[in-house]
């Protein structure tokens, strides 16, 4: 990938992010923050790449593994905790109707 096309990817990704969220009810601020936070753990892919390309370099393998651990802590914890919060919202409509 050339650097210029990566810059295009960055630009378009940012624009997409700006457009995705318009009006958010205050109720959802915390879950949205927590969900988006889980997605930012996507660096786990970078950590994976690092491990795969380490080619037997043990210190690098360890750094990659620790990095992967931190990222997955963020991702798994983030999604679970978001689900726990949202479960409390979604229970009600089903009770009422």
């Amino acid at each position: 990938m050339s650097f210029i096309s990566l810059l295009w990817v960055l630009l378009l990704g940012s624009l997409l992010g700006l457009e995705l969220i318009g009006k958010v009810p205050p109720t959802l601020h915390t879950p949205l923050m927590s969900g988006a936070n889980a997605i930012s753990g996507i660096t786990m892919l970078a950590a994976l790449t690092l491990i795969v390309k380490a080619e037997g370099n043990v210190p690098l393998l360890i750094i990659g593994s620790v990095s992967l651990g931190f990222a997955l802590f963020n991702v798994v914890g983030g999604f679970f905790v978001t689900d726990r919060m949202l479960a409390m919202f979604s229970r009600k409509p089903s009770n009422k109707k």
Partner: protein
Amino acid sequence: MNLPVIIKFVIDLLAVLLLALGIKGLSKVKSARDANRLAAFAMSLSVVGLLAYYLGTSGIAIQSWIWIIIGSIIGSLFGAILAKKVPMTSMPETVALFNGCGGMSSLLVALGVAIFPISNSVENLDFFKSLINDVSISVSIFVGAITFTGSIVAMAKLQGWLSTPGWTQSKVRHFVNIVFAVASLIAFFDLINGNTSSIWLLVIVSSLLGIGVTLPIGGADMPVVISLLNSYSGIAAAAAGFVVDSQLLIVAGAMVGAAGLILTQVMCKGMNRSLVSVLFGGSLSAQSTASSGSGEYTNITSCSVEECALTLEAANKVIIVPGYGLAVAQAQHTLREVTKKLEQNGIEVVYAIHPVAGRMPGHMNVLLAEADVPYEQLKEMDVVNPDFPATDVVLVLGANDVVNPQAKNDSSSPLYGMPVLDVQEARTVFVIKRGMSAGYSGIKNDLFDLPNTSMVFGDAKKVLNDLIGELKDLGVGEK
């Protein structure tokens, strides 16, 4: 193009689409839960795509598998356990902790690549390419370190492990932070010049900068900071994407970064604060001790639970103002029982939700939803404020700063200008509180001195339980 490349391309594209739909869906109440699962699915899909790609091209060494499995299991396990165990009251701290770890991950990746250049990145690069490589490594380390230390400080402050040191409220902190910022810039240029060891300087000063920027911020501004740090962790991920040459990382990171920025702005608007004043205005808490911590309470009326019950029985309209104290006492279910009784007696009950009630926006909504309070009864501040003059009884449960009339009347108060709930305009106000201690901002609450305010001292849960008993004795809610 061979097959693995095509497969990875298709999977990446699909993952980006699903992630975008996930973020979009998370901003609507109806679709939020499914959207969260969709995003989680997209993330796992992206991992499968990446692993499949390497299996199809270079292959993955056994040794790599071992380290992948170790890291994954430990990280996921701790993440899952914490997410299941943590009480709803400490949600903000938890989000901050997760967020900090995401930043740490980006930092480590960049650091690893910087110390041990991996194949295809640094070997035989022309000047332009190695410059790009250095810049993306530096950005990833800089933003990752700020995200990590900033989030950890935010968590520690919310947990009450750290208070706001006095010096951070003076102009000194701007000077200190500028020094850190300049030092990281120097380390950055030194790194580009080929001095690899300056990377450690960059790690240290950007970590310090994260602490220096977050430490002075306190009180109601904390959620905004966490949201901003969340946006940073997206930027750090995007920078890591440049380091390892991954488009998916760049898109997803940029998306989270931009969406987080918008969310931060939305939250600022809700509190009537600008982002600049949150970041550089200093915290409310430390100013107050200097300026208007003045004055003892002169006119406190305390009353018994029985009186409170009698007044409630005679009311037509009751507004409940929940706050952090309710969350701490875990009294939401007991509160729901009280309001059920009142409703059965034909009394109109509404909950007034201040945008920053609790420690995070939406905190109270989550808590009350847990106790099965109907969604329609939760009213936002702007909607409920005009209703207070026509209200007979207001029950303030563990809220303090968000009902302080100083914010409207006293221009010398540190709270001045913060939007508050106008509870004092109701006929009678009951404040259920453990003691006379001040709220999170540390400021005296003028509401407690007003003649139409009565204090009911005690733990929220216990008082509400007593209240249920008293209401029963009065025959309320038993037709």
